[in-house]
C-alpha cells in the first residue's frame, strides 16, 4: 500500500450514517478538488450516507483528481486504512476509527444540527492536535489550505482495562 505514504494518495470523505449533503457538496466542489490536486492527492472517494446529492464523477484522465462516490459500504475501515487523508463528519465512530488507523483527519462539523454535542469531542481532540477541525463545510477549503499535517499528534491508546479493574474491585472480585 505504497499510495498511503505521504501525499499522492486517496482522500476519503465520510459522513457515516448521517445526512450531510453540505459536506459532500463542498468536498466535491471544483475549488476543493483543485486544492486537493494541488496538494498532490490523486483521488477522492466520497461516502455519501443518507444524502441525496451525488457528486459528478471523474476518471482523472483530464489530469485532475479521480472522483468516485457511494452511499454505504460495509468495509469502510478498509477505505480508511488505504487513505492518505480522511475528511469526516464529527461522529465519534468515524473519528476514533480514523485515529486508531493513524490516518490524518479533518473533521467538519455539521453546523445545521441543533444541540450538536459532538463538536465538543472534535474541538477537544483538535485542541490536543489529534485532528484538524473545521467548524462548518463553508470553512473546509480554507481549513485544508492552512492545515499542517506534520504537526498532528498521534492519538494515545485507550485504557478500557482501567475501567474494568475499577469495576472488578467495586464488585468484590479479587484476583487469586
Amino acid at each position: 500500500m505504497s499510495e498511503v505514504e505521504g501525499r499522492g494518495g486517496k482522500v476519503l470523505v465520510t459522513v457515516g450514517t448521517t445526512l450531510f449533503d453540505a459536506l459532500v457538496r463542498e468536498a466535491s466542489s471544483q475549488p476543493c478538488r483543485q486544492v486537493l490536486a494541488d496538494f498532490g492527492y490523486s483521488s477522492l472517494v466520497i461516502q455519501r450516507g443518507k444524502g441525496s446529492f451525488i457528486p459528478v464523477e471523474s476518471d482523472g484522465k483530464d489530469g485532475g483528481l479521480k472522483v468516485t462516490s457511494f452511499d454505504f459500504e460495509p468495509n469502510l475501515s478498509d477505505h480508511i486504512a488505504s487513505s492518505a487523508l480522511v475528511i469526516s463528519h464529527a461522529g465519534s465512530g468515524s473519528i476514533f476509527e480514523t485515529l486508531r488507523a493513524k490516518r490524518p483527519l479533518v473533521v467538519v462539523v455539521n453546523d445545521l444540527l441543533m444541540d450538536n454535542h459532538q463538536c465538543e469531542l472534535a474541538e477537544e481532540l483538535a485542541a490536543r492536535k489529534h485532528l484538524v477541525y473545521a467548524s462548518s463545510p463553508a470553512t473546509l477549503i480554507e481549513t485544508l489550505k492552512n492545515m499542517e499535517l506534520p504537526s498532528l499528534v498521534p492519538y494515545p491508546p485507550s485504557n478500557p482495562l482501567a475501567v474494568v479493574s475499577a469495576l472488578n474491585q467495586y464488585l468484590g472480585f479479587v484476583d487469586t
Partner: protein
Amino acid sequence: MDTNSVWGSWGLVVASIVTLLVVRAVWVLQITGRALPAQSGVKRRPLRTLIVLGSGGHTAEMMSLVRVMDLKRYAPRHYIAGATDNMSLPRAERVEAELLKSAQFSDQDTKAADEWLQRSQYSKIYRSREVGQSYVTSVFTTLWAFAHSVVQVLRIQPDVILCNGPGTCLPICVAGFLLKLVGWRWVVVVYVESIARVKKLSLTGLLLYKLRLADQFFVQWKDLKTKYPQANYVGRLM
C-alpha cells in the same frame, strides 16, 4: 362498619406503605455506591449482567469495555437495544462470537462453548422518543417504554446493569432502582458517560448523577471529574 372507618383503615394502610417506601428509598440511596464486600474470584458467583447498547457511538464504546471484561465473572450477559436500532445487537453478537473463539476452555470444550453462546441473550426495548417525535405523544410512549423496561428488568433479574448513555438506559436504571426499593434484589447500576461528553454530562448522565441512581459513575475526561466530583475517572474506552 360504616364507610368512613373503612376508608380510614385503608388510608392508614396506604400511609404506612408510603412511609415504608420513603424510608426504604432513603436507605437504598444511602447504600447505593457502597462497594460489595471483596471475595476471591473463585468464591464469588458470576454476576448476571444487563448491557444497554445504543447507536451513535454508544455501542462501540460499550463493546470496547466488554472486550476486556472477564467474561466468566460477568455472565450470563444480556444485551438490550432500542427497537429501531438494527445495528447494535448484531454487532454485540459478532463480538461475543469473536471472544468465544479466543476464550480458553480447558475441559469439555464444546459443551462449555455451547453454554457460552446460549447464555448470552439479545433483546430489544421500546424507545421513549424517536428523533423528531412530538412531545405530546412522547409522554405516552415514555410511559409505555418505562413499563416495558420494568418488565424486561424483572425478566432478566440482573446483578449488574451496564450502560453508557443512550435514552433507553434511563428507564432501565430506574427499573433497577425499583427492584432495590422493593427489596427484590440488589442491582448494581454502572454508568460510563460517553467519550463524546467532554465538558458537560449528557441529560441521561446528569439525571443518573443527580438522582444518585448509579452505584458507579465513570467519566472519560478529567474536566468532567472536576465538575462532578462523585464521578470516577480512570481512563478512556476509545
